[in-house]
Every structure is written in structure tokens, then in C-alpha cells.
């Protein structure tokens, strides 16, 4: 297993290398205007000087080489536009904790609400919970997040007298953004859990358990739920990453100083170093997330072993 993990990590490194190279090259295709805030007021001289000092006038291969040398020295460089001269890691480091915390919290909420909902839906197919859950899932998928987040923010703050904006010091202000962030995942988890549980319910071993005389509550709890949860486990790490990276609406609405919209922001501002660093981090985390998903799955499911190469799913 260690060996397998090591091998996959090496493979991932190559993948990362390619990804970064491509993103690096794509970023260099962007118009130079994007590197300046005050483009219109600058003279040729200044633009030239600035581009030169950012190393953007060197041939691409040299830029790439410098970039990799810098990475080898353990530095992701400084931000260029987003916050000039501030080390990229410092910026990310200051934003990551809130995002990670909020991502984890929202994921916990999503699991706490989504899994019971999915279970209830699977249990009483076409019962109240199934209908309710389906309605909820359909609502969440049909209404754009941008709209229902705003609805939640405006009405809930009004009804419960909550502050509109997030503030790190005020725990009450965490509630709405975190809950909003989990809405999509609640629907998603409920939907998949229901699907997997219904699949699982048709398996022979459930029949055997019933024939043994195990009551349906224990069957749900001890047999169906856990087995249905296994295929979901694999996606949890990636799902967390998406939650963090995709919290752009929430962070904008509630002023959460997280890194949700950061990537989009720095791409638009053409802060090359930030883009590269973020892509590097996100891809790395994504790849590790996949691996972690496999490991988790391996822990949950004794049948799966890394020795056998992962089959089809």
C-alpha cells in the first residue's frame, strides 16, 4: 500500500508539472493591459520597465525555467497584482483557515442533515420524506445558487435578527453562510445516498438479514447505510475541495475573507504568481484528495485493496 501510494504520488507530480506548465503558458497569452491598474496613464517607458522587472519580456522557456527554479527553492513567489510583493503563501495562509473551517463545518452540516434525509428517503420510497427530499433536491438544482443564497441571507437575517455580514469574532454570524454553503451538499448527499441505499436494499445479503429476523431499523443502520456510504466516501475529500473553492457566492455575499473567489479573482486580475500557486495547490490537493478518497474507501471496505489495481467504477 505504501508503495502504491508512493507510485501514485510520483505520477501525480508529473501530472502537476504538466498542469502548471500549461496554466503558466496560458497566463502569458493574456494582454499586458491586465498587469496594470493605471494602464491608460502610463507611458511606454513605464510599461516596458514594469514588464521587464516582472520578467514578462523574457522568452517563455526562460520564464518557465525561472519559475521552476523558484519552486525548487521552495518559494511560490510574491503576489504581483493582488497584493504586490506579499508572498503568495502569506496571502493564502491568511485566507485558508476561514475557508477550511467553514468548508468543514458546512460539510459536517451537510452530512448531518443530508445523510438522514437520504436515509429517510430510501426507507419510505414515495413516502413523505421521499417527496420532501425530492422537492428539496429539485429546488436546489433548479434555482440558481446565486438567487437562493441571497434569499436566505435577506430573509433569515431579518427573521432571526442575525447580522447580514460575517464577522470572525461573532459566532452567530457564522451560522448563515455555513448553512447556506451546505444546502447544495445536503441535496447532493441525500440524492446519492438514497440512490446507493436503494441499490443496496435490493442486494441478497439484505434479504438474508431480513430472513434472519433482523428488524428493518437495524438493517438500515448496520447493513444498508454503511454499505451505501462507501461509494460516497470516495468523493468526500474532493467534495470538500469543491466546497471551499466554490464558495465564491457565499463569500461575496457575507464578506467571508476566505479563498473561495480567490482563484477567479486573481485570474481576472492576471496575478500570474497567484494563479500558478493556486492552481498548483488546488490541483495538488485535488490529486491528494482523490488518493485520500481511495484510502478512505479502502479503510471502509475490506474488499478493496491497493494491490489489485482499482477496477471500474
Amino acid at each position, binding site marked *: 500500500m505504501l508503495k502504491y501510494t508512493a507510485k501514485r504520488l510520483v505520477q501525480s507530480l508529473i501530472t502537476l508539472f504538466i498542469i502548471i506548465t500549461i496554466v503558466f503558458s496560458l497566463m502569458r497569452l*493574456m494582454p499586458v493591459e491586465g498587469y496594470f491598474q493605471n494602464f491608460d496613464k502610463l507611458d511606454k517607458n513605464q510599461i516596458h520597465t514594469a514588464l521587464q522587472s516582472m520578467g514578462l519580456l523574457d522568452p517563455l522557456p526562460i520564464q518557465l525555467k525561472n519559475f521552476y527554479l523558484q519552486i525548487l527553492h521552495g518559494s511560490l513567489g510574491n503576489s504581483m497584482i493582488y497584493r504586490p510583493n506579499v508572498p503568495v503563501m502569506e496571502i493564502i495562509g491568511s485566507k485558508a483557515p476561514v475557508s477550511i473551517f467553514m468548508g468543514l463545518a458546512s460539510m459536517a452540516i451537510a452530512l448531518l442533515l443530508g445523510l438522514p434525509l437520504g436515509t429517510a428517503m430510501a426507507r419510505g420510497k414515495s413516502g413523505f420524506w421521499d417527496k420532501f427530499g425530492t422537492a428539496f433536491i429539485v429546488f436546489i438544482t433548479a434555482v440558481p445558487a446565486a438567487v437562493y443564497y*441571497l434569499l436566505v441571507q435577506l430573509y433569515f437575517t431579518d427573521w432571526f435578527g442575525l447580522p447580514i455580514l460575517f464577522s470572525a469574532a461573532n459566532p452567530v454570524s457564522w451560522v448563515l453562510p455555513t448553512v447556506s454553503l451546505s444546502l447544495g451538499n445536503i441535496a447532493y448527499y441525500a440524492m446519492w445516498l438514497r440512490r446507493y441505499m436503494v441499490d443496496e436494499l435490493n442486494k441478497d445479503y439484505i434479504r438474508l438479514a431480513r430472513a434472519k429476523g433482523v428488524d428493518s431499523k437495524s438493517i438500515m443502520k448496520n447493513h444498508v447505510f454503511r454499505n451505501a456510504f462507501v461509494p460516497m466516501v470516495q468523493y468526500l475529500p474532493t467534495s470538500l475541495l469543491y466546497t471551499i473553492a466554490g464558495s*465564491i457566492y457565499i463569500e461575496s455575499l457575507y464578506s467571508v475573507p476566505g479563498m473561495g473567489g480567490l482563484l477567479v479573482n486573481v485570474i481576472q486580475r492576471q496575478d500570474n504568481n497567484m494563479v500558478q500557486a493556486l492552481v498548483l495547490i488546488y490541483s495538488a490537493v485535488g490529486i491528494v484528495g482523490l488518493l485520500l478518497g481511495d484510502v478512505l474507501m479502502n479503510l471502509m471496505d475490506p474488499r478493496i485493496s491497493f494491490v489489485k489495481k482499482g477496477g471500474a467504477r
Partner: protein
Amino acid sequence: MALRHQKTAAVEDSINQSLKNLSDDELFTFSGFDEAAAERSGYSDYSYWRSTFQVFLKNKVALSLLILMGVILLFTFIQPMIPGQRSATEIFNDASGMQLRNLQPGGEFWFGTNSIGQDLWSRVWSGTRTSLLIGFAVALSEAVLGILMGVLWGYVRKLDRLFTEIYNVLDNIPQTVVLILFSYIMRPSISTLVFAMCLTGWLDMARFIRNQILIIRDRDYNLASRCLGTPTRRIMLKNLLPYLVSVIMLRMALAIPAAIGNEVFLTYIGLGLPVSIPSLGNLINEGRVLMTSAALRYQLFFPAIALSVVTISFYIIGNAFADASDPKNHV
């Protein structure tokens, strides 16, 4: 073993009728045995697509949504041609030449007007048309590209490593980078949007198809085809793809609302269509700002409802169709 073949059934019935009138003596004689009839017994004629539609037609909700969708589709395309309909981009002025801004929904403007006096009713329809166009274009190209790549990826073992690597790479390149570059090179327009969405959108489809293919690739019937020397191309076309029809339909049905949803997001981060081309994405985004003032919320709700109707319809139709196209459900 669906319906009994009607002709056979009729013949059987008439035989039974005639037998009923026999006397005891006659009843206890051998009836004779027809081997061909025995061979035929119990089975009926059957057509895959007919059964698919039959099952689908039984799902009343999906059917009514399909009809609704059909009507909507039809209407979006003929709406501009109907006399008395306003143009989606024309600005309406009052007698004094000022724009009819933010008129509430009413008899004159059914959905009201927006902040520069354009007719929201025609804008919503026009937006639906644009968004559906984007949705269909994206879904279609995703399907074509995704299926092609997915089948190759899944079936041709040698390509697996390469494709997996390509997938990992492309999947990790942020869509925003690509979009921004594209809108710089190509200007924000429907084709830019579609193009950029397709550029990475097919990946999911391809991976999905690949996984499905992996599941059925080594089934006996494919081995049989290989034993018969069937070339790979035909195996893909005849053995693999037909099995994926249902899932592909489902994915495509979901890809349409997903593309529209994606458009909303892209509009939000400023990469969407210009307002001169109304789309659900920019209508909703414009409307969002008005959320706080109760009287103007209609400008958000109309396009949001349009979007929801489209999304829900495709979602349910897609699911129903996927169910229907699974022969397991054709009993």
C-alpha cells in the same frame, strides 16, 4: 415478454372457444402436438423503441413536462414572429420621449419593463431562447466529443494511460483561465461561451462513458464479437453505444440545465453574455441586484422561474427517459 402477439392470442381464443363445446368423450382424446407452436408459445413481438416510448408515456408528470417543454421551445422560436410581440432589445418610451422604466407587470407589459424600458416578457423569452440554444449546443457537443473520447478511452486499453493523464491535466486547468483568454480572443458572445464551455465540459462525459464502458467492455457478448472478428469500430457502434443510450440521454438532459446554470455563474463573475443578447444568465444577474426592493423583485423572479421550469423539466424528462430506455423496465 410484453404483450401477447395479438394475432396469436386471437387464434388461441377461438380454439379454446371451440374446445369448450366438446363432449366429455371428445375432451379426453389427445389434442395433437405442434412443435412449432410450442416453440412460439409464450413470446410476443416487441420493439425496443416502442416499448421505451410506451413506458415513457406512462409517466404522466414527465409527459406533461415534455409537452410543456415542447410548447416552450416552440414558443421561444415563434415568439418574435407573432404579431404584437415586442422586440427584446427595443427600448420603449413614453409620450414625452422618456424611457418606460421599471414598469410593474400589467396589461401593457405582461412581465413589466426593466430599468431602461425594455419589455421583460420578450426578454425572458428571448433569454430562454438564448440559454436553451447554449444548453443544446453545449450538451450536443459535449455528448459528441465526450462519447467519442470516452468510448476510445474505455475500450482501447492502450489509450487508457494517456487519456487518464490528459483528463487529469485538463480537469485541473481552471475554466476561468480558459474563458478569460477566449473572451479576450473571441469577444463575449454566444459562440465564445459555448466554445469555452465545451472545451472542458466534455471531460465529465468522457470519464463517465469510460467508466460505463469499463463495466461492459469484457462482457461475454463483446468477447463473442471479438471472436467473430468484428472490428473495434463496429463493436463500439453496435455493442457499446446502444447500451449507453439511456445514461447518455440522462446526462444530456442534465447537461442542458447545467450549461444554463454555468452561464449564470459565468455572468456572475463577469464573463457572461452582453446584455444586448438577453439570456437567462444575465437577466437573473441583473435581477439579483433588485432583490432588496420588493417592488422590483419581479425582474428577478420571471427569469428565475423560467430557468427553474427549464431545469426541472429537463431533469425529470431526462430521468424518466433514462428509466424508460432501460429494457429491464419493459416488462
